[in-house]
Each structure stands twice: as C-alpha cells, then as structure tokens.
C-alpha cells in the first residue's frame, strides 16, 4: 500500500492540474496547471523505475548493493523535463503576446476566433 503512495500523488496532481485548466480563467494560472500536469507525469515515470533499496544505476559504482533503480525512466524523465521547459517558455511568451494584443488574460474575453 505504502509503495503505491507515489502513484496516488501522481493521480491527485494530474487531476488537480486538469481541473485547474477547466475552471481557471487566468491564462497564467492555466500555464501553471500545465506545469503541474507535466510534473505529475515526470513523477509517474520516476516512481515507475524505483526499486525499494536500490542504488543509482551506475554499474561500476554500485558496490556490494546489487539492486539498482531502472535507468530508462530517468532518461525519459530528463527528456520530458526539457520538453516541458521548452513548451512552458513558449506558452508564457504566447501569453505575453496575447496580453499585448488583447489587454487581458481572461480566457472568456479572448474570443476572436469563433464559429
């Protein structure tokens, strides 16, 4: 049960982020919610690769311990972090441009493309 705790946290974070995207009106808060979702996914990947009592997955440094955590999810997480950094930066610059054009960050008022 306690071993599954990280996955509950992942679920809570993910749902929290998703809810925030739907109910928040401010674009900056929506960008933060997307960041929370990315963090939840990264946590999910890292938690997948964890083995109880494992060491860092470096073969020559492991010493007498033979249990290692999985390296692949860590590599995946690093890549996913870089990607989410890029998209967050892009999203924030878009929000800046939106503010410049529309003078507001309220999603209900940014409605030129309809129908």
């Amino acid at each position, binding site marked *: 049960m306690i071993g599954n705790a990280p996955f509950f946290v992942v679920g809570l974070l993910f749902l929290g982020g998703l809810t925030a995207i739907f109910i928040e009106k401010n674009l900056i808060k929506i960008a933060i919610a997307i960041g929370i979702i990315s963090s939840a996914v990264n946590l999910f990947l890292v938690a997948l690769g964890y083995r109880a009592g494992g060491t860092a997955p470096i073969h020559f440094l492991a010493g007498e311990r033979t249990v290692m955590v999985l390296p*692949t999810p860590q590599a995946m997480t690093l890549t996913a972090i870089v990607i989410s950094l890029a998209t967050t930066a892009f999203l924030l610059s878009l929000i800046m441009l939106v503010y410049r054009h529309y003078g507001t960050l309220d999603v209900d008022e*940014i409605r030129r493309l309809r129908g």
Partner: protein
Amino acid sequence: MNWNDHLPALLLMIPLFGAFAAPLVCLLGKTMRNVLLVGLSFVTLLVALLLWKSVLAGGIAVYVMGGESFNLTLPSGMALPIRIIMEVDAFSAFMVVCGSIASFAGALFSTNYMEKFTGLGRFVSLYFLLTLGMLGMMITGDFFNFFIFIEIASIASFGLVAFWRDRPEAIEASLKYTLVSQVGSMIFLIAAGALYGKYNALNIAAIGSLLQFGVMEKIALVFIIGTLAMKCGSFPMHMWLPDAYAEAPSGVSCLLVAVSQASLYGLMRVCFSLYGVNLGGSFIPWMIISMGLASMFFGVTMAVVQHEIKRLIGYHSVSQVGYMLLGLGVGLLVLTDAHGMAEYGFTAMKGGIFHIFNYTMYKGLLFLAAGAIYYATGKRDLNEMGGLARRMPFTTAMFVIAAAAISGLPPFNGFVSKLLIYESVFAVHPALTVVALLTSVLTLASFVKVFQTAFLGPEKSVFTGVREVPSGMLFGMGVLTLAVLGATLFPSWTLSNLVEPAAKALVDQAGYIGAVMGGGL
C-alpha cells in the same frame, strides 16, 4: 556499405541538418536561403522515395541507432530490444512519401509567399523541424521516440502558427493549439509509461509481442487514442484545427495537413500493430467508426457556413479525416474475421489509405491556392472576392482540380478512394454509406460556393491591379496538382503499387513484430 540500409537515418538527418543550418545560411542572403529550403526538401523527398522503393523491394527496414551494426535489433542475451529502433514498413514508407511531397510543395510555395516578411531564418528552421517531427513520427518503432517526435512537431507548429505574431488571431489560434496539444501529449506520455511499467519495453514491436489485453492496456489504449485523435483533428477534439490551419502561413498549412496524418498514422499503428488481434471485442473499432462519422458530418456542416476561405478549408479537414477513420475503423472491426476481411474489410482499408494520399495532396493544394489568393488580393473573406478567374488563370485551374478531387467528382482521385469506402462500409451497415455520401454532397456544395464567389462573377474594380502569383508559388501548387492528376490518371497503378502494400503491411501484425523480435511471436 550499402546506402539503402541507412536511408531511415538519412531521412531524419537531412531535415535536422537543415533546421540547424538555416540561421547560418540565412546570413548569406535570400537566394541561399531559398536554395537551402527547397534543395533540402527536395533531397528529403528523394530519400523518401528511395526508402519507399527499398521497402517495397526488400520488406520491412529496421534501423538501430547506436548499435554495433544497423540491423542488430536484439543483441545476444537480451530478451527485449534496448536501443532506439526505427522501423519502416510499407505503410510507414507510404506515409513518408505523402508527407515529404507535401513538405516539398510547401517549401517551394513559401519561397515567394514569405519573401515580404522578416524572421525567415527562424521560419526555415521551424519548417525543417516540423518536417523532421512529422517524418520521425512515421518511421519510429519506439513509443517514447514517438512522443519526442510529436513534441518536436508540436512545438515547431505552435511557432509556425503564430508566425504572424502581429495578428491577434494567430496568437490566439496558437495558444489554443498549445494548450490542447500539451495536455494531450502529457496523457500520451502517461500511456507510454504505463506500458513500460507493465512490459519493461518501449519498443512497439516488443510490447506487441507480449501484450495481454488487461485493465492497464485498456487505459493506455484509451489515452493513446484520445490523444492521437485530438492531434489528427477528429470530431469532439477538433476545435483547434480550423483556427490553426487558417492562421498559419499557407505553405505551413499544407505541411500541417501532412503532420495531422502522421498522428493518424500513429493511431493506426497502435491499433493494428500494437494491439491488433488482441483488441478484444468490437468496442474500439466502433468508437473509431463513430468518431469518423461524427467528424465527417459535423465538420462539413460547420464548413458550409464559413465565409473565410482558409477557415472553410480547415473545417473540411475535420470532415475528410472522418473518411480515413471510417475506412480504417471498418478494417479494424473485421481484423480477426478472415471472411469479412476478404469480402469488404480490406477494400475499406485500401480506401482509407488511398484517401490519406489523396487528402494530403488536394487539401495541401487547396490551402496553397487559398494562400495564393491572399497573396494576390490581400483578402481572406469570400464576400469580398469575385471575378478572380480572369486575373489568375493558373491558380483557378489548380483550385478547380483540387475542389473537384475533394468533392469526389469522377474521374478524380477523391472519387476513387471515396467509392472504395462507400462500397465496403455498406456491408457493415448502410447508414455508414449514407452519412459518407451526404458529407460528399455537402462538400461539393461548399466548394461550388467558394469557386463561384471567388473566381466567377463580374470583375471587381478593386482587383484590377491583381496579377497571377510568382512562379515559385505556381510550382509549389504544380507539384501537388501533378500528384493529384497522377493518382487520377493511373488509379490502378497507384492502388496496386502505393496503397495495397501499405494496407497489407498494416494488417500484418506478425510481420511488424517479427522484423524486430526476430520472427519469434
């Protein structure tokens, strides 16, 4: 060393090189930049054609990145492949050919179309990155790499949709696309992680060989289908698509059409090659079929009322994606039923796959023609246009060809693929054909409207100075017109050489898995 073996890697290296060389080459001036954009797109197209030829001749091509040799998928003592593997079967090769034709046409078109604007170094860079992401999605054999290529393609397309950043609408469209797409790709990553957690593998073929259809797999499948259906613009998640297509520069819209097909490719790859015969029951196929029907019908009904030309064409994209979902969904429905497959399922899949080719070509052509109108007149709204046929005869001719093809008028290629879909889905349920026919009629109605208002009628005084667009744009449209006419004039050659191997490859799950796992299913 045989060059043919390294084609999958070359296919990705060339646009990647172009993306990073672009800012440097642009310092050398306008001509060099255009040479880079068109030249490298053309080389990519050549490599794609060579790859397609070698796959047709020699079966599935696998390419291992970072291994001792290029085709060592399973190093000795390993039960699962550990390296990054590209896997190109006939369906991937077919998609790669479609995508690189669209990319080449868009590049040719953009040389003249974009020349009035600044920041073209970044434009060329992003254009190549988008091509790279699209081609990567089509040839990768690995889930996590698929995610990475989705993200490369997405980030490049966010930037390109917002390229005219002084237009509020462009920023809004890009923002909408970014929000939807970002949540979608995170959900895709969760699915990839879930499958990794269960099977300790990221390779599609390796997971496919081990797959047992349980709760975890159902969750992962739903997540993947939801994400990829969103990225290809299927009905309930389509709202970003007309905005993004309409606001992107036209050469990019043409490429974005091909990128959405790459997502459709991913959807089909997961359904057929990963789950395949394990896809218990008919729920998922029916879900895909009904998404297709809803996309077709609602897409076209929303398109009919539009009066901004690129937005109208964008809504037609939603409805055209429905045809492919319908055809391939019917194929998926009868995947385990050999009799049904031979009777009508395989025809439906051929129709769906042929429609992918046709759709990429004529939809790209329509976007380019709409861009040509915008370039020549500066107008986006149909109500302000009229009498352009006198001033722009070549654009008019190519627009007519594309419009006839998308409406499914015989003898154009759109008719052939639609006919294959009509006659085969009729066997599942006649109502499917009724919706498809109705959609086709409404498509025709809508394009008659566009043609009549934009090109026919009396000459307007504001358009007396309008001239035919420059040659680069005409050549860009010409490439796609040639592709449409080629598929129109030689339908049986296209069907037997281009489409049928792709359809066969898609249903051959054991072959796809065996190419990586060494025949051991």
